[in-house]
């Protein structure tokens, strides 16, 4: 039972992530769910750090916490009639949902834990930003460019969808 600091850190952040995710799924108030999601994203970023993915962890914090979560909170504020509106929690097939999710979780954990994955020996910890940049410019240059075009199209499309009403009236 000799746990080192790595294991302890992993268990702390895994618990943070899962408890926050439970908060997201079960919170009655939509604002509480959004703030639980914040902690879940931070926990996942910490797990990325433990997996020696420093660049992805920073990207996770910048994009998810700084971008997507702010978008979600704006969506909550713009679409809730009152601040403290109930999140219209469930009553939408709770019992079948529990069975389906239990089946999915059981199958996933069973398959993931009984499979013998081809595992390499522990790799050294080294910075990943430079090799990821090199990969993006060589092997993955086509998906990289496609992603940039996709982002542009998606953002312009989002603006157009959200503003169509006003443009038509004006």
């Amino acid at each position, binding site marked *: 039972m000799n746990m080192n600091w790595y294991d302890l850190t992993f268990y702390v952040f895994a618990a943070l992530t899962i408890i926050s995710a439970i908060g997201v799924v079960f919170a009655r108030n939509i604002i509480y769910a959004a703030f639980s999601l914040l902690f879940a994203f931070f926990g996942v970023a910490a797990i990325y750090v433990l997996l020696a993915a420093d660049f992805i962890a920073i990207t996770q914090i910048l994009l998810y916490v700084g971008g997507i979560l702010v978008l979600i909170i704006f969506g909550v504020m713009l679409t809730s009639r009152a601040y403290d509106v109930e999140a219209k929690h469930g009553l939408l097939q709770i019992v079948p949902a529990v069975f389906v999710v239990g089946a999915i979780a059981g199958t996933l954990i069973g398959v993931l834990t009984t499979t013998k994955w081809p595992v390499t020996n522990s790799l050294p910890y080294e910075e990943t930003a430079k090799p990821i940049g090199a990969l993006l410019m060589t092997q993955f240059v086509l*998906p990289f460019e496609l992603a940039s075009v996709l982002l542009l199209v998606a953002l312009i499309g989002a603006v157009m969808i959200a503003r169509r009403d006003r443009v038509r009236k004006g």
Partner: protein
Amino acid sequence: MSETVMSLHVGLYHFLIVSAILFSLGIYGVITRKNAIMVLMGIELILNSANINFIAFARFGLMNLTGQVVALFVIILAAAEAAVLLAIVLNIFQQLNTVNVDEVDKLKN
């Protein structure tokens, strides 16, 4: 590095189990929530769990850095998807004054 499931020493399996739990919680959120924004939060949880898998196999498996690059693309797609979905939700709210996915059934009739 221990390769057994029951060991307290953290290995690949621990990350996979965390990812599976996150995935299941996300599915539960997507199924049970009525509010479209809550459904989006469930989808974000699912995408994060997939990313944990990619990066876990990048560290422990034979994927090297490819897994991390794929995770990067997943994050980019998640950003685009969230922006488009929220635009659609805002438009639905302007038109129908609701964001509950079970009340938006105009195409049914």
